[in-house]
């Protein structure tokens, strides 16, 4: 079984988001970048399934410029066998999906996994686009993934419940908790990751159909109105008469 795991390079979850003075770009200064937390589920589950089967490969794929390589190496340290970086700024979801589809087609991967969405752009789009470009099913968002031969059984989250879905390879799935406990690299992994192959390829495809022109931060709150704990019931009156939300 050949697994392709797509990871994106995102600001650490504790990052305070700021933008450049013209509000056109995210301000990267002093920001720690990590593997997108949702993608960690995809990576760990692929490694677990490979180990359980006793054979197969896990290739990690990132669409990004050279500054993403520390996190690609981290994915190799966690247990991926090799890596591919498409050397391009990830302009939008469609552009990224085109790159993934091209790599997937060329490499003949059986299972293409990624996180539910990236925590920076929150598109929640790439998995469906890749599935459509390749003409194969996408299961998103998946909370559970088991393989038996070429058949996968997945639990797909729906509002208020879940669906049990079976698909045959090749397929795309986007992953979220509680699929697995994401692994962290151990010392041996970090040592071996240095020599694992990381191939850099050039982007393909058509220009993006969307473009971000400006960012903005949410409006600041006015300040909190404190109610003494002894008269907690007054809060309910305020919510009805002042805030008018109940």
């Amino acid at each position, binding site marked *: 079984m050949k697994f392709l795991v797509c990871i994106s390079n995102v600001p650490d979850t504790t990052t305070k988001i700021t933008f450049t003075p013209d509000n056109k770009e995210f301000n990267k200064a002093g920001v720690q970048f990590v593997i997108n937390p949702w993608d960690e589920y995809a990576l760990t589950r692929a490694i677990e399934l490979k180990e359980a089967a006793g054979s197969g490969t896990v290739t990690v794929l990132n669409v990004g410029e050279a500054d993403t390589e520390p996190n690609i190496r981290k994915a190799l340290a966690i247990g991926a066998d090799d890596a591919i970086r498409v050397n391009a700024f990830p302009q939008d979801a469609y552009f990224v999906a085109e790159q993934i589809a091209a790599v997937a087609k060329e490499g003949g991967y059986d299972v293409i996994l990624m996180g539910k969405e990236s925590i920076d752009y929150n598109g929640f789009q790439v998995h469906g686009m890749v599935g459509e470009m390749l003409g194969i099913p996408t299961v998103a968002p998946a909370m559970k993934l088991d393989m038996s031969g070429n058949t996968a059984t997945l639990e797909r989250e729906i509002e208020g419940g879940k669906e049990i879905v079976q698909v045959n390879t090749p397929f795309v799935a986007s992953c979220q908790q509680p699929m697995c406990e994401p692994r962290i690299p151990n010392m041996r992994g970090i040592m071996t990751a240095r020599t694992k192959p990381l191939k850099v390829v050039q982007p393909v495809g058509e220009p993006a159909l969307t473009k971000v022109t400006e960012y903005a931060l949410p409006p600041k709150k006015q300040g909190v109105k404190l109610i003494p704990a002894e008269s907690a*019931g007054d809060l309910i009156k305020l919510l009805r008469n002042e805030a008018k939300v109940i």
Partner: protein
Amino acid sequence: MSVLVVVECDKGEVKKSSLEVASYGAQVAAQLGTTATAIAVGEANEANLAKLGEQGISKVLYDAEPRLKDFVNNAYTKLIATAAEQEQAQIIVLANSNIGAAVGSRLSVRLKASLATNVVDLPKTDGGQFVVKRGAFSGKAFADMVLSGDRKIIAVKKNSIEAQHEAGKTAEVSSFSAQLSEADFADAPKQVVMQDQAGGVLLPEAERVVSGGRGLKGPENWHLIEDLAKALGAATACSKPVSDVDWRPHHEHVGQTGITVSPNLYIACGISGAIQHLAGVNSSKVIVVINKDPEAPFFKAADYGIVGDVFEVLPKLTAAVKELS
């Protein structure tokens, strides 16, 4: 040219988020001087579909094929794509739901359309550009995005648009068939399992949310959260540490790596307010924080606060709500 809106139905009812989508689509159609048609998916009821006229929809297409009752990605995609072709829709509006995202992303490739998800406001169409505002950085920011494709797909974030109601207006419901074949249902679910809904309010659709953190000290104390939620007609939620230790199920985890919610009222009980949690809730209209630590960072993001012990404060709030009604 027209606007096509996708309305999700469940047990005959149009979902609240789809009423918002219908209203959004009708307002976009008015901006562009055209009409909005809806295509219904899920288990629909024709009388309720006709009521979409109240949101400004002129016509509703409905395929009564029984296998479309449950979500099937390929079949839904083909159904909507066929409707878009028939209606010559340049703009498709759907909910930013698990169904909307799964279908929207496939449609964007099939129809070569610009796709914007997580959209929070009506588009700006002056100056010949089509610009939408969408949530980014997991609730920590917004982005203005230009959609340059001839066709555009917009997934509207739940509870970010108020659905219009013009009482008495009805939409024409017409039957529609996308000529779906067996192959279109190949990825149909084998089984659908619904959760037990305490109080029956779904978190992603909820207008009010009562959420608990580690301050509740254990799952055995969750009745305090549930009692207040029930009295308010609210959904229950929790912070990440709580779902990580399995006090509560994962689908209740609100935050940057859980779900983001934007209810009218979010009541946080015993949650300190880490930046990752705030990201998931800061588009809520009114935030109430109850915490015994006056230094809890959540108070800075709150509209109302009570510095006090949740074990004493929560029963008082529940009693006060019951007194109101």
